[in-house]
């Protein structure tokens, strides 16, 4: 870490290789696979490179990078939503909007026999705030307090969002859970 802070690119590359899995899980979990997720993943590390001088090491590096990743992913989702809102009339805005969003990224056509693709597609159909909790808490395995800190919400909010998200995921993944397949 100290070498990377002194501008050693080889040391920084080691950090990238060590933590790219954690960043990928967050970014792809939020945005789905593809070029945009890759770009956002790169941006996470570029921003970290820029802020190396300010990183004091108080937070675990994985937590620090995941926080950047979740914030950039949420920004990208907001950008997508603004783009879609220009072209799609949404009459269902507000608190009573359904928890599950319509598939707009081709996930409706996922091969249901592919468990991994089905799980990821189901997670991406959750609303962003619920999706973020599932990605950080269930997929990445952060504890409730860390997840709350990353999302800047109270731990109780994390738990209630997680509960609602899991309820929403049950019917979407019922086949895979019952089959217990791989």
């Amino acid at each position, binding site marked *: 870490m100290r070498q990377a*802070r*002194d*501008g050693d*690119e080889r040391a*920084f*590359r080691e950090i*990238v*290789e060590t933590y*790219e*899995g954690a960043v*990928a*899980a967050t970014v*792809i*979990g939020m945005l789905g*696979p593809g070029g945009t*997720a*890759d770009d956002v*993943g*790169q941006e996470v*590390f*570029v921003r970290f*490179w*820029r802020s190396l*001088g300010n990183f004091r090491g108080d937070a675990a590096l994985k937590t620090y990078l995941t926080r950047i990743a979740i914030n950039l992913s949420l920004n990208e989702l907001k950008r997508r939503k603004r783009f879609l809102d220009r072209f799609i009339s949404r009459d269902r805005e507000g608190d009573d909007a359904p928890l599950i969003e319509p598939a707009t990224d081709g996930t409706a056509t996922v091969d249901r026999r592919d*468990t*991994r693709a089905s*799980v*990821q597609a189901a*997670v991406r159909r959750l609303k962003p705030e619920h999706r973020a909790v*599932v*990605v950080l808490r*269930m*997929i990445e*395995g952060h504890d409730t307090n860390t997840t709350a800190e990353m999302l800047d919400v109270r731990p109780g909010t994390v738990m209630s969002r997680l509960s609602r998200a*899991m309820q929403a*995921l*049950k019917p979407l*993944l019922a086949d*895979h*859970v019952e089959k*217990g397949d791989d």
Partner: protein
Amino acid sequence: MTEHDLQLEQLLRDKGRSNFGPGFADRVMRRVEEEPVGWIDSLTLPDFVRFAAAALVLAVALAVFSLSGSSERSQTALEAVLGLDPVTATSIYDAQALMPAASESAS
């Protein structure tokens, strides 16, 4: 929590993760190399502390140097440290100092 809930959690843990395509680290490093590095961007905190310490020593040395001749120039200590000319009645009412252009045209 039911057996079904536990299975769902396990499914998410096992199948929810993804990876970037091959060569991700190379792509990141290409972008890092393209980052503009100005001299001020490359300063680290230890660099800044060294720079600030040197600047402080220089400022103190200049102040001591200015103070050393202050009594001959009838300057107060503050004037000497700040490098100001002593304020006298002559300097206040010196027309040339107040309006150099006017005094030049009059002459």
